[in-house]
Every structure is written in structure tokens, then in C-alpha cells.
């Protein structure tokens, strides 16, 4: 008995370090493999004898100092004049309602105009000549220089999940513990194989991060009920499918533009289906049953919503799109309020704020929206008393330890009881509090796997934002940058609401922790959101060609 206890203890200390190393390698590797900061093309202004470097795949040209190519001292150039961009290895220019118009070799540009090296582009009185446009090879750091190969990362992740499963087995003592974990590991290797050989993705770091988190979610769900582990695995596998489909779908940025309206309808429709056919579970009527499967359509609506949030560069400044986004958001928020899914409403609202700011760049707009929200919150608190109760508890959880603050107090006590290295997966007490498998999974993991471990895992979610930001200027279009920022912002915002709500630092809203909480739909949605982050990385769409020179990829 003592030997087993010592083995479990050693495992509890070793597992988080393996997670730390694996996740660390992924982030370092993602950072190392980026394209060097070299000009993709040059624009030569003969009259001023000045060369502009084209650094991005999509460039705003104008007088405004925030433009990517700033043409100073020419008052005939509009503040935002034109967009120079690359699609399918071709360069194009497009006029964005400039006063003076855009001319290529004397021809007025009406729609996207393809460009060749040497073409003369007239913007007002400035004439720019396109030179050295990159069509050939762009250097990208090869795999082996990126510390570890994808195979190694997947093996490490598999090992990590197995270690966690062994730890759970020690406490649960049922061999069934291993079945969902092994199924998940098999699915993981299959996904890796498909990713490398069929989808020809050049890297697997982001997927590894998501797989490691999902694997933890699968094992911890299994410790609650074995069947849940399988459900979670199925959710993850469907999620990987959604992930691959979305990446394929938005490969052509212009395609997704036209789908904005369809996605708006989809987002509203999904939430509406919850409102019309939803069944109540734990205070919010956000579940629908389809053929014996319970789904949370609002979770999937998040993925569709990201499409709407992501504009394109030529449209970014137009108020019409902000108004459209506003209307869609209000419709979704109203319906979520109607089914009392306040947590989800908050997530949409947070994402909306991020999108509003990224579209307008105005803190004023953000403040106005926030003020409206505070007023709305006041109305909600009056109309729905159980939400007011959460506010009452906020900051005083210990005073309400037996009623409204019951979950938070237990989360704090159990979390602290786990210390930094935990009590062992399956060996906690918080799991006996209702719906802790989804709403209190942070503290459950904190208790059972240790604070150190869970901090590493949630830091990886925070790390996604850092990664998404570093991709914003490297992506092939503003569409991807916006989508990645919105999606990663959404994930972190939701994680924050889950974690700090569960700890009583903010009112509790009953949200899932991305990838880790039990919930198939939530898992699918997280993978769906991850697709936007992956797409922002220009490397994603490079085909691996075996004949290309080692370390170099063709665009």
C-alpha cells in the first residue's frame, strides 16, 4: 500500500513537469518557425526616389500613419486609399473608396486588379512601381531546427495522458479508466497521421497543445463516469474534424467573406434552436436533444460568431459592418438571456467588445457599449433574482458557505487541500459537488492534480493569445488575424470567467473551462475556435512537398 502511495506521489510530481516540457516545446517551436522579417515586395516611387517595403500579405496603403505603407506629403492620397494583397501567389490591388482612385498602368482599377513586376500603380499624384514581388521561395525554419519533431510531441503527449490515467487508476482501481484514454490516444495518432499525410500540414504544435489539454479532459471525465470519458473522446474527435474542415474552408479568404451572412444566420439559428427546443439543466435551458445526444447549440454558435467578427481589411473601416455585428450580437444576447444562459451571453459580449475595438480602434466605442451593458446587467439582476444572488455572494463566499457560496467555498477548500501537487486524479472531494465536472473543473483539477499542474494547463490557453498576436502581421489576410484574435480572446475570456467565478473572485456564471471541462459540445466548439488561430499562421497553408529543398517550402 505504501509503495503504491509513493508511486502515485511521484507520478503527481512528474506529470505536470512532462506537461510543462511538452507545452513549452510547442510554444518555443511555434515561435521559432516563423518567417523572417523580409520584404515580400518593393514599391518604388520614382518622383520621390523612395522605396517602400511591402512586409505583409495584405497591406493598407494611405496617408494615415497607421497604414502599412504610409505615403506622406501627398495630399491627393486618401487617408486609407488602397489595399495591396497576395492571393494564390498573385499580387492584387484594390481601391477602397479613395477620392482620387487607383490606376494600374493608366487603367482605372474597379475590382481587384492583378499585378506583375514592373506595373505602375498610380495613387493620386504618386506613382509606385512594383518590384521584386516574392513568388519564389520563402525561408521557413525546418522541423529539425524547431527543437522537436511532431512525432516526438505526439508521443510525449500520449505518455502524459497515460501517466495521468495510471494515476487515476491507482485511486479509482477500475481498469476501465484506461479505455477512453487509450481510445483518445489512438485517435490522436490517427489525427497526426491525417494531418501530416493527407492535409499536409507542416507542423503540429498547436494541435499538440489542444490534444494535451483535451486528453486531460478525457481522463478527468473518465474518473467521474467511464462513459463520460468516451463521450468526451467522441467530442474531441468530432472537434478535430470540425477543426480540419474549418481550416480547409477558410483557406481562401475571399470565400469566407461571402459566408458572413450564412454564418450570421447559423449563429442566430443555433441559439434560437436552444431557445425554442431547449431543455432546462442546472438553471439554464440551453440543452437540446437530438437522437439521444444532448447538445449545447450555443457552444457551436460561438464558432459561427467568429466568422462574423472577422472582417477584411477593405471593409474594416465601414460602420455598416459594425452595425451588422451589433444587430446579430443583440439578437444572440437577447435569446441567451431568455434561456437564462447568462454565462454564455457574457462570453459573446466579451468577444463582441474585442471585435468592436479591433474594428474601430476606439476606446470610446468600447466604453459606450460597456455602459449599455452595465445598464442591461442592472435590468437582468432585477428580472432574474438568482443572478442577483450570485452578486450578493461575490466577495463574501465564506459568509454564504451553506447556500449561495457553497460551490465556491468548497472549491477554495478543496483546491487548497490539493496543495501544489494534488491528491491524485479521482481522489478529490470536490467531484461530489453537483456539476463540478464542468463548472468547477479548475478547482477539481487543482485539488486532484495540483495547483502547479492546472496553472500550466490554463497558461497554455493564455499562451494561445500570445501566439495569435504574434501571427497577426504574418497572416495572409486581416480576416485571419481578426478571427484568430477574436477566437483566442474568447477562449481566454471564457477560461477567466470559469476560473475566477469558481473561486468566488467574480460572480459565478457556470461556464466550461476550454478543453478541460466535461462537455462534448464545448469540446467541439473549442477545436472549432482553434482552427481560426491555426489559420492565422501562414505556414498552415504551405503544402509540404517532399521534393522541396530541405527546410524550404514553396508558396
Amino acid at each position, binding site marked *: 500500500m505504501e509503495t503504491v502511495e509513493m508511486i502515485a506521489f511521484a507520478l503527481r510530481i512528474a506529470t505536470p513537469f512532462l506537461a510543462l516540457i511538452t507545452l513549452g516545446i510547442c510554444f518555443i517551436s511555434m515561435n521559432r518557425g516563423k518567417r523572417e522579417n523580409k520584404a515580400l515586395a518593393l514599391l518604388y516611387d520614382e518622383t520621390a526616389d523612395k522605396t517602400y517595403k511591402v512586409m505583409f500579405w495584405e497591406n493598407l496603403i494611405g496617408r494615415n500613419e497607421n497604414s502599412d505603407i504610409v505615403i506622406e506629403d501627398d495630399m491627393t492620397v486618401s487617408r486609407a486609399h488602397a489595399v495591396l494583397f497576395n492571393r494564390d501567389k498573385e499580387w492584387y490591388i484594390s481601391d477602397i473608396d479613395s477620392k482620387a482612385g487607383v490606376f494600374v498602368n493608366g487603367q482605372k482599377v474597379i475590382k481587384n486588379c492583378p499585378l506583375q513586376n514592373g506595373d505602375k500603380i498610380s495613387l493620386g499624384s504618386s506613382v509606385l512601381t512594383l518590384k521584386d514581388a516574392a513568388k519564389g521561395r520563402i525561408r521557413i525554419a525546418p522541423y529539425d531546427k524547431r527543437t522537436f519533431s511532431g512525432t516526438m510531441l505526439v508521443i510525449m503527449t500520449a505518455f502524459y495522458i497515460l501517466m495521468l490515467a495510471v494515476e487515476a487508476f491507482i485511486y479509482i482501481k477500475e481498469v476501465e479508466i484506461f479505455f477512453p484514454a487509450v481510445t483518445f490516444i489512438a485517435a490522436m495518432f490517427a489525427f497526426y497521421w491525417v494531418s501530416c499525410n493527407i492535409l499536409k500540414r507542416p507542423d503540429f504544435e498547436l494541435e499538440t497543445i489542444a490534444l494535451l489539454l483535451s486528453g486531460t479532459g478525457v481522463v478527468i471525465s473518465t474518473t467521474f463516469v467511464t462513459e463520460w470519458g468516451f463521450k468526451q473522446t467522441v467530442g474531441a474527435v468530432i472537434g478535430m474534424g470540425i477543426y480540419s474542415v474549418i481550416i480547409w474552408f477558410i483557406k481562401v479568404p475571399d470565400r469566407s467573406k461571402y459566408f458572413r451572412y450564412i454564418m450570421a444566420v447559423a449563429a442566430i439559428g443555433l441559439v434560437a434552436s436552444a431557445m425554442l427546443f431547449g431543455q432546462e439543466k442546472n438553471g439554464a435551458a440551453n440543452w437540446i436533444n437530438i437522437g439521444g445526444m444532448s447538445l449545447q447549440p450555443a457552444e457551436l454558435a460561438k464558432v459561427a460568431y467568429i466568422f462574423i467578427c472577422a472582417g477584411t481589411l477593405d471593409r474594416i473601416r465601414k460602420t455598416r459592418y459594425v452595425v451588422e455585428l451589433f444587430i446579430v450580437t443583440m439578437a444572440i444576447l437577447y435569446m441567451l438571456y431568455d434561456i437564462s444562459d447568462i454565462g454564455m451571453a457574457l462570453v459573446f459580449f466579451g468577444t463582441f467588445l474585442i471585435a468592436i475595438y479591433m474594428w474601430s480602434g476606439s476606446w470610446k466605442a468600447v466604453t459606450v457599449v460597456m455602459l449599455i451593458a452595465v445598464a442591461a446587467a442592472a435590468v437582468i439582476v432585477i428580472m432574474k433574482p438568482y443572478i442577483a444572488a450570485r452578486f450578493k455572494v461575490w466577495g463574501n463566499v465564506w459568509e454564504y458557505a451553506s447556500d449561495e457560496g457553497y460551490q465556491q467555498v468548497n472549491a477554495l477548500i478543496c483546491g487548497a487541500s490539493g496543495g501544489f501537487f494534488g491528491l491524485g486524479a479521482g481522489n478529490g472531494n470536490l467531484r461530489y459537488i453537483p456539476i463540478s465536472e464542468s463548472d468547477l473543473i479548475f478547482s477539481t483539477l487543482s485539488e486532484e492534480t495540483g495547483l502547479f499542474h492546472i496553472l500550466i494547463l490554463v497558461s497554455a490557453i493564455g499562451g494561445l493569445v500570445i501566439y495569435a498576436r504574434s501571427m497577426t502581421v504574418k497572416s495572409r489576410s486581416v480576416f485571419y488575424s*481578426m478571427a484568430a484574435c477574436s477566437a483566442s480572446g474568447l477562449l481566454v475570456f471564457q477560461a477567466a470567467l470559469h476560473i475566477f467565478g469558481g473561486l468566488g473572485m467574480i460572480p459565478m456564471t457556470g461556464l466550461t473551462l476550454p478543453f478541460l471541462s466535461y462537455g462534448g459540445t464545448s469540446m467541439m466548439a473549442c477545436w472549432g475556435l482553434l482552427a481560426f488561430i491555426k489559420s492565422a499562421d501562414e505556414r498552415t497553408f504551405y503544402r509540404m512537398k517532399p521534393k522541396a529543398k530541405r527546410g524550404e517550402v514553396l508558396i
Partner: protein
Amino acid sequence: MNTIKKRSNIILILTIAFFAGLLYHTVNIFINAEDWVINLRNLHLTAAGNLDYAGTIYDRNGEVLAYSSGGERFYNDDESIRKACLHVVGDDSTVNLYNSIQNIYRSELIGYHFLFSFGMPKNLRKGNDITLTIDAELQKAAYEALGDRKGAVFFYNYKTGEVVCMVSTPAYDPENIPENMKNNEEYDGVYINRVCSGLYSPGSTFKLVTAAAGLENIKDVEEVVYHCKGEDKIGGEDITCEFAMGDVDITGAIVYSCNCYFGHLASELGRFAMTRQAEKMGFNKNITFDGFESAKSIYDVFDINENEFAWSGVGQANVLETPLNVAMISAAIANGGTPVMPYIVSGIGGKDYEPRQTFGDNMMSPQTADKIAGMMDSAVYLNYGKGRFSDTLDVCAKTGTAEVADAEPHAWITGFCKNEECPLAFSVVIENGGSGYGEAIPVAAAVLNTAERLAISN
């Protein structure tokens, strides 16, 4: 693209806030984890078997009260001491003994450390030892004096605050737990530490409060002489004494315990003055020492009629008091009006605490305290009989016989030793035990005699 990069700062801010929140929680765990885990809701803390590798509990003389060996918890060798110390030491197999060292100091006993918390394998844990101020022999004497009667005995040093004896009965043997405790009259309320949580009608011991209120609020109260005919009418209804006492002043009323006098005095003072004095003396608030939480003594007279209010002045009607509170009032009287707070833990983990001597809220002026002390001295001298206590201790006391509906009255005594060599304040209550004069005095005397023999204050 540059614009987007700049504007993506909004999610960077969000993420910084996210990490700041995580950091805050981590720091919070560093600082507060120990407070959080000792919460009795924590099943990790209270799980049976958690004390299997815990530290030892000693009494003031180094007598072992509880210890762990080979993955099992053991208690003192003497069965009477085990039972007498049950409510102080606790029982590792249950969480029901709420006010006990093994519950309150469980995290110290098992050697809790926030880094590994309860995740540390048991054989790597190192528990802390705890030394208490109680005396096992004295506990045993009190337990045996109570016999099979239910009740509570509390003795503490009114100068330093050391609790030397805290016994609650009924008790059971933690090494040999009786099986049929539920629904068994004999073990009714066995998990309650009656010293802290027992709320009893205080009967005549409450006259100390009324007397203090009178002395503090009415200038010439000592001049007033009342002619007791054994009964009187207040608010149109009867108030009665044991016998007709004739002319009594306030001292006489304490010595012979005249209900009519104190009923009138309370009426005279009024509900506000009485409530103010009672609350000064510990009513309607919680008393906590070393994690032992007492129930609130209750004095709430605003909803009762005039006659009932008069009765409340002699500790009847709806007045309820804990033995701890009663003893602290005596301690205040002995100590010039301000009680010293009791404490029971004198050392943890090999480190001995300095004598703490913290004072509670002032209960009365030093003059009032002196006068009441004199009255309690007279009560022993003139009424109870000096010979019933040890000569050298100079005991001052007040008994009480608290009438309860359809049962024998509760027998009470509270008081203190004037002797500086043995500065103990005490309270004894015997549930439905009969008269304070007849039943409570022998218990107090037995404990005091043992204390003197053991020279406990040294």
C-alpha cells in the same frame, strides 16, 4: 496589418488580466490555504484515519492525552481520563466533536504544509505535538465528581487565562466507542461540549449580573432595604422566594438569594439598563478562545411581560447562559471587573507559547467588582458554609438552582478562589441535578481540593 497588430493589444490586456488573476489566486493559496483547509466542511481534514500519523497531545504536566503509533490513534491509558478529556481532545473517528483540539488543530497535528497539503504520503508526514494547559488529574476529578450526571465543569486561571479543567458529560471512551449511542437517553447530546455549547437557564447565578447592573446604575442601591415576605407581586403576577427572608439589602439578597429583591431591582432598572449590562457581561455575543467557539448566551427581554422580566432578573424566564460565560463573569469579579480570556493551547510543535494573558471586554467597574466579590465571600461564609471548601483557598461563590419546566432544576455554582496561590475561577452545572447548594457545591469543592493538592497554579 499594422493597425490590427496595434489593436490586438486589447486581447493582450485581457490575457495579462487573466495571468494576474491566476497569480492572485496562487498568492492567496500561499497566504490563506491553511485557513481554508481547516474548515470543518473539508472532508480531507475530517476524514477518519487522517490522524493515524499525527502528533501527540500532552497535558500541562506532560501526560500523554492522545498519540499515534504504527498508523493508529491512541489515547491516555486511564479510561476515566480518556472520558474526561473526550470533549477537549476529541475523537479521530468522528467530526461531531466540533469543539475539540483534534478538530480545531487537525492541520497542525497532521503536519499540514501548503505545498503538498494532504497530498503528502502519510509515511512522509511529520505531525506536530500540542501541549495543553489542562490537567489530566483535575479532569478526572471533575469527571468522577459529576458521576453519571450530565453537566459541565470549567476551571480556569483568572490571572493568566490558562484553562485547567474543561469537562462535559456524558462522555464516552474514544478507544472503546459504545455502539448504541443514537436514541440512547444516557448519551443524549454526547457530542456537545457543554462548557461552550450548553445553554442553560442560569438561575440565581444571574443575580451577579443584576447586582452589577444595580451597583453601576443606581447610586444608593446599597442603602435600599427590602422586606421579603417570601412572595410578592410584580406586573400583577407572583414572584416567589424559597422562604420569607425578612429585611434584606443587596448583600443579603445575594447571600440568601432573594428572588423578590432582584425581581424588583430588575424592574426598577428597566429593560434597557439590564440588557446593556447583560451584553457587557458576555450575553448575545460569541466567545471564542483558541478556536473553541461558544454558543451565544441569550438575554432578550423586550418581548416578555413585566412579571417575566422580573423573573429574568433572577436568571429565569427566557435567559440562557453557557457555563463558559458564567465562569468568565466570576473571573471578571475576581479580577477587578475585566475577565482574562481563557486559553487552552500552551504550545505547538515543540514551541511553547508565552503566557498570553489577553483581556476580554470590561464587564463592570473595579468598585462594583470588589463589592460583588465581598457579597460572594459573605455567601460562602454566611450561607453555604466555609467548611464545605478548603480553608486555605478563600472561595467566593454563588450557587443557583435554575427551575426548568417539568423536570428537576439545574444545579449551578460559580465563583473563584481569593487565594493568590490558586487563582481559579470556575463554573459547574449539573443538568436537572437538583439544588446548587446541595449538588453543585460538592463537585466544585472536589475539583478545588484536587487543584490545591496538585498545586496547580505553579
